[in-house]
Each structure stands twice: as structure tokens, then as C-alpha cells.
């Protein structure tokens, strides 16, 4: 701060020049104009760091996206037999990797559908309710269509990730993931 500054109101308590003052005095100025400058400078730094943090977040998503795209197509796996699931019944299984829980349902029309079990709102497990034609998430009362996985009600806006299935004879295979993140 210049000595001939017109906005300078108070003098340093010990009468020495600014250069001889301890560094903390600059951080905690006495005059309002100096204080305004200090607070704006800090706010400016905060804005710059926030902007940088958003860029880091975007790059992180880009890395995750590239990793997902380069990942090999999941291997097909037998998940059930036709006979073990009567109409309206469901079965939990892990696909494509351990810990990624999915649910297979036998639809009222006789076909099969399988979806990731994580609710697309906040990842609570969804439970099939075939009699109501939906998957229900008890955490926030969200629901998804039993056949398509599209959101029907509640907070979720994205459909459940759908698995591709193939029925060969009496056996049901999961052969890939259609969309979404399991």
C-alpha cells in the first residue's frame, strides 16, 4: 500500500513503514478499503481454485468414460434355466463382475428381462413387484417399469441399466449390457 494513498485512513500503530510491518498486518488491515481489497483478493483466489476443481472433475469423468469404452465386452454367462423361474418370479445374480448385482425377472408375457439392481437415483437396491408391473425402490419411493426399466415415478430420471439376454433351449444367458452404468 502506498503512503500517499488517498484511501489510507490510519497509520501503522508503531509508526514504522509498511515494509517493516509483520506480514499478518497485511492480512488483517485496519481500514475498510484495505479490508475490501483483501477480501476481494481472497474471493478471487477461491473462484480460480473452484474453476480449476471443475476442470479436474470433467477430466476425471473423461478418463472414466475412456476406460469404460476400452473395456472388453463382458463374457456371456448362464444365469438361470427357464424352468426355475415361473411367471412373475425373479432371481438375483452378479454380472458382469462380482459385486455388480442384477435382477432377472420372468415377465407376465412369458419373456425375460434383466436389469442392474442399483436405483439410478442414489443406488439403493430396487425390488421387483411383478404384480404391479414395476421395480420399486424403497429409499425414496421410486419405481421403474418391469419390462423396460424406464422410470415411472419418484426421483429417478434415468432408466435402469438393461442386460442383453439370450435364451438357448432351457438356459438363459446374459450376453452384455445395453446401456447405463452397472
Amino acid at each position, binding site marked *: 500500500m502506498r503512503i500517499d*494513498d*488517498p*484511501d489510507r485512513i490510519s497509520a501503522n500503530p508503531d509508526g514504522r513503514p509498511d515494509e517493516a510491518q509483520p506480514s499478518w498486518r497485511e492480512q488483517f488491515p485496519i481500514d475498510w*478499503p484495505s479490508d*475490501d*481489497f483483501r477480501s*476481494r*483478493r481472497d*474471493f*478471487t483466489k477461491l*473462484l*480460480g481454485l*473452484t*474453476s*480449476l476443481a*471443475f*476442470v479436474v*472433475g*470433467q*477430466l476425471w*469423468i*473423461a478418463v*472414466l*468414460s475412456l476406460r*469404460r*469404452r476400452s473395456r472388453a465386452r463382458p463374457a456371456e454367462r448362464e444365469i438361470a434355466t427357464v424352468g426355475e423361474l415361473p411367471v412373475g418370479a425373479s432371481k438375483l445374480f452378479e454380472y458382469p463382475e462380482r459385486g455388480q448385482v442384477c435382477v432377472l425377472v420372468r415377465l407376465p408375457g412369458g419373456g425375460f428381462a434383466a436389469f442392474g439392481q442399483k436405483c*439410478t437415483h442414489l443406488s439403493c437396491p430396487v425390488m421387483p413387484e411383478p404384480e404391479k408391473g414395476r421395480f420399486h425402490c424403497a429409499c425414496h419411493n421410486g419405481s421403474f417399469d418391469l419390462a423396460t426399466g424406464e422410470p415411472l415415478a419418484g426421483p429417478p*430420471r*434415468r*432408466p435402469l*441399466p438393461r442386460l442383453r439376454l439370450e435364451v438357448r433351449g432351457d438356459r438363459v444367458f446374459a450376453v452384455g449390457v445395453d*446401456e*447405463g*452404468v452397472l
Partner: protein
Amino acid sequence: MSASRFVRSQRLTIVAGILVVVLVLVVLQLWLLTATMEAYLGGDDSIVVPAALASLGCFALNFGILHFYLRKLLD
């Protein structure tokens, strides 16, 4: 006219205007981040890289404004 010719109150007005511009860019970045995350989680990878580049552009603009111009006014 150089920045030092303005009195402090005048400079603070200019600084406030610049900070508003920077703040708008930061809010735009926040919106980009949430929209990208939403799209990524929904299985759509097509906007991830363009959004990252746009966010990087906003940051470059912010950095330019804050580093080269605002610093002159605040020092």
C-alpha cells in the same frame, strides 16, 4: 488509462464487474459438470470430451482474467 490512475473506489467497481463475469463462468462450469455426470451415468459418452474442453476453456478464460487483469487492479 492505466489502472493506477483510478482511485481505489473506482477500481473496486471495475473489480466487482469482472468478478461477476468470472462467477458466471464458474456457474457455467458447475452446470457442465452436473450435466456431464448425468449423461455419463446414463450411458451417454458422446458429450464427455466436448464438455471437458468447454470447461477447460472457461478455466483458461478465468485464469486469464484473474491473472493478467484483475491482479493489476488489486495490486
